[in-house]
């Protein structure tokens, strides 16, 4: 992907983009209380008095949330800070019960790391992670339930979040999209966040500025709470163009927070704040510094799953896949697992050592199509990995042709049946008996003496037509290679 340039009157501009992602930690209970962190309950049913900021209530840290954040840090190849500090971020809002959010500021749990972008051309591009810190979520304000009032639901108040802050290394909307998808992929592999942007378990703040290539950074605007990958990309596009327009018209860009309006396709400033922001961070005196031992981190590191980048490398190395194919297969762990099972053969299934490239092709071009059409995740695929593997085996050992295999796959998709059964039941075995093929060839030649003469006279291009006729005559079951060989022999004079 080439650099994205916005053409202005005064020349070309480039965008500088950084993302702050709030990822909800997968845990049973909240970061500092024993209330459930599950999404979607009735209002205020998952609220402890700690979450509601009642007098005398005190926070007690959830050890699993810490473990999850450390796991995420390790997955981002980041430095785990053995001492980190929870601080209070003070501001008033109706859905922030204590009047402060417990967050991390000067001493985050996780320091610098990297996310590798897999570009469409097969190349990779590293994006710096500045930090990851752990914090509580606020509650939810509902503004549209009543003409005069805002309603407050504190179910989300206190749920653990990881704020993952990238360096301003991104340059195009596409890169931002690839980054978000890759981050989501890593989080899902790790099992630390489900990455569901619709339910708000992954939310994104976008920092955008523009500059002439080679210039130092200019003023950035922050677009708050964009809730889909597509909207993030659109918001960047609109915001970057808006800033270029502003500069080109002799205006300036102010540092501010903006909202993305997906209906109008524009960003606009948030309500002018009558109250200046001054969060007055200070270490939370209800909590002590969080200290972890190197051994603690090592234990978590030892249980880390193979992550997309490593898997991709391994798929290229062990299965000879192209970077693109490997990259596509590892986005979701379930897909990668499916591919591997199909390629290697499960226990007692197939003979192993299948043509992995062929398996990859089947997964990417045929299986994905089926799953898309049916709106199913790979874990609920009607065609099991074992069955797909068997199908490839049936092609490899000459039982069926590739063309027949497509038909068999279609039936598998509808019925979930074993391909061998389908082939047997429908009599789809390839005809490899040369006698039977020869008979069919003779029949076709006999029926078309003129065309046969033309071939014999040198019009070799007609051979393909004969092949087609023979295949038709055998119901597609004849081995095409054998058909060709016999045809050549018979028509070469």
């Amino acid at each position, binding site marked *: 992907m080439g650099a994205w340039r916005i053409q202005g009157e005064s020349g070309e501009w480039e965008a500088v983009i950084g993302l702050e992602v709030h990822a909800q930690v997968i*845990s*049973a*209970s909240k970061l500092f*209380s*024993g*209330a*459930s962190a599950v999404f979607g309950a*009735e*209002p*205020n*049913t*998952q*609220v*402890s*008095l*700690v*979450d*509601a900021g*009642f007098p005398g209530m005190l926070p*007690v*840290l*959830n*050890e*699993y*949330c*810490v473990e999850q954040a450390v796991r995420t840090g390790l997955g981002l190849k980041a430095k785990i800070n053995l001492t980190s*500090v*929870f601080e209070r971020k003070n501001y*008033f809002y*109706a859905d922030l019960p204590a009047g402060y959010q417990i967050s991390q500021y000067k001493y985050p749990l996780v320091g610098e790391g990297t996310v590798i972008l897999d570009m469409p051309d097969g190349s990779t591009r590293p994006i710096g992670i500045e930090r990851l810190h752990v914090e509580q979520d606020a509650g939810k*304000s*509902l*503004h549209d*339930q*009543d*003409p*005069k*009032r*805002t*309603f*407050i*639901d*504190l179910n989300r108040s206190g749920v653990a979040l990881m704020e993952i802050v990238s360096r301003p290394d991104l340059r195009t909307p596409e890169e931002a999209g690839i980054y978000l998808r890759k981050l989501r992929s890593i989080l899902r592999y790790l099992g630390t966040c489900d990455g569901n942007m619709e339910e708000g378990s992954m939310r994104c703040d976008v920092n955008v500025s523009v500059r002439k290539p080679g210039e130092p950074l200019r003023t950035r605007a922050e677009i708050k709470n964009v809730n889909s990958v597509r909207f993030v990309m659109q918001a960047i596009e609109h915001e970057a163009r808006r800033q270029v327009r502003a500069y080109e018209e002799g205006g300036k860009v102010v540092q501010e927070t903006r*909202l993305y309006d997906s209906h109008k396709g524009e960003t606009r400033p*948030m*309500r002018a704040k*009558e*109250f*200046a922001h*001054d969060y*007055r961070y200070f*270490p939370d*005196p209800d*909590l*002590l*510094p*969080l*200290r972890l031992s190197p051994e603690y981190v090592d234990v978590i590191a030892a249980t880390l799953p193979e992550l997309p980048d490593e898997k991709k490398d391994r798929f290229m190395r062990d299965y000879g896949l192209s970077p693109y194919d490997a990259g596509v297969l590892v986005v979701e762990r379930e897909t990668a697992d499916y591919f591997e099972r199909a390629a290697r053969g499960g226990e007692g299934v197939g003979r192993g050592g299948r043509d992995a490239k062929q398996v990859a092709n089947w997964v990417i071009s045929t299986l994905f199509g089926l799953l898309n059409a049916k709106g199913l995740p790979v874990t609920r695929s009607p065609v099991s990995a074992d069955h797909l593997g068997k199908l490839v085996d049936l092609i490899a050992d000459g039982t069926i042709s590739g063309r027949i295999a497509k038909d068999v796959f279609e039936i598998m998709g509808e019925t979930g049946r074993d391909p061998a059964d389908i082939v047997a039941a429908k009599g789809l075995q390839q005809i490899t008996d040369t006698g039977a093929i020869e008979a069919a060839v003779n029949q076709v030649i006999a029926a078309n003496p003129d065309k046969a003469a033309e071939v014999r006279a040198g019009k070799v291009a007609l051979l393909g037509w004969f092949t087609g006729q023979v295949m038709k005559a055998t119901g597609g079951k004849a081995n095409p290679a054998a058909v060709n060989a016999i045809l050549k022999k018979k028509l070469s004079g």
Partner: protein
Amino acid sequence: MALTRDQVRAIALLARVRVPDEGLEPMAKEISGILHWIEQLNEVDTEGVEPMTSVVAMTLPMRPDAVDDGGDPAAVLKGAPEPVDGFYAVPKVVE
């Protein structure tokens, strides 16, 4: 450091404590006096001193990830000014 009326107004807004206009000046005087008294700390050489945030010489304890609280909306809404349909309610916020 002497605080101005405007500074007091700004702090009062930040703290969401209404100070009437006529109260700004006296409050500025009072707080300035206290700050002035506090500033004797500047005499202390704190070069290289680690700030002390807690007197407790232990690491942060943690709890297991168990759901053992919540589930009682009546308890959290009891005594709430003007609750509506299981929600807390506040004057409408325009975003």
